[in-house]
């Protein structure tokens, strides 16, 4: 959020060392008022924020709606995939004459995964 108008730091990325130097040197500066450039940048940033709230709010709403729809679709797809997986395990185990205990463990694991997924959603 903090604007950096400094050409020196826009050429290279601002390193941790730069940030630390800035913080240290500001300890020695005048402490009763913030810097002029900082103040101007803060006021301009706040006024820009003031100009675009409606557009941003509308965009944010669209993103929320879209993500809600996507989440539902993904949830259903996951549920169908888990159900198909469980069915497939039963069919394969019948064909391979798998040990009944092993079959139960596999199906229970899938059901548990499904439940934990639903639990996570709730």
């Amino acid at each position, binding site marked *: 959020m903090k604007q950096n108008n400094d050409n020196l730091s826009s050429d290279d990325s601002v390193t941790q060392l730069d940030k630390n130097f800035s913080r240290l040197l500001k300890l020695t500066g005048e402490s009763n008022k913030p810097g002029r450039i900082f103040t101007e940048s803060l006021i301009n940033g706040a006024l820009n*924020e003031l100009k675009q709230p409606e557009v941003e709010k509308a965009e944010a709403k669209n993103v929320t709606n879209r993500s809600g729809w996507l989440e539902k679709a993904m949830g259903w797809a996951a549920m169908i995939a888990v159900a198909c997986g469980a069915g497939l395990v039963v069919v394969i185990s019948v064909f391979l004459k798998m040990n009944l205990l092993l079959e139960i463990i596999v199906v229970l694991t899938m059901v548990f995964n499904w439940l934990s997924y639903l639990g996570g959603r709730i």
Partner: protein
Amino acid sequence: MSEKLEQQSWAGFAQGDADVWREFIERQIPRLYGLFMGRWPNRSLAEELLQKTVFDAVRGRGSYDPAKGCPEDWVLGIARNNIRLEIRRRASRPSINGEISRYFEAMDTKLLPDEVLERQEMTVIVRSALSRLKSKEKAVLEAKYIEELSANDIARQMNTTEKAVYILLYRAKISLRRELGRLASLNKK
């Protein structure tokens, strides 16, 4: 007359009138900055909190209710809330122990904790380190990090080229780093 003007301003305040807000922010900046500096004598932190408070106010202007008080008190409430959040953030951080030199050694990769910056001896160490630099090195560091001037502005101020400013700044940073390390280790002894 002035009361009417004030009421008009309040209406503009809630509606997000740019002129009203500009005037309001300009008036509030020194007041809020003083409040934060009074709590923690750390200019970077005060600027951070000031910025957060101003943006919180702009974004939350819809929640301002003139019946509950003037905008100044409302924004002061936001500032106090940010102070409370900072106190909580500090309480959740591990306590700062050990010598300052340990933090200086890692300053290339880690941000110095606020608690270290706010130690009484820190300002003395930084001032001493600066005083040991060449006058041009000191000037370029102050212009960049305190006045936050661009390379172009610094070059104009120092009557030199931008490239020379970069070179000088590079050297000044090395010298300052060396002096800080040396003084911190002396402080340890």
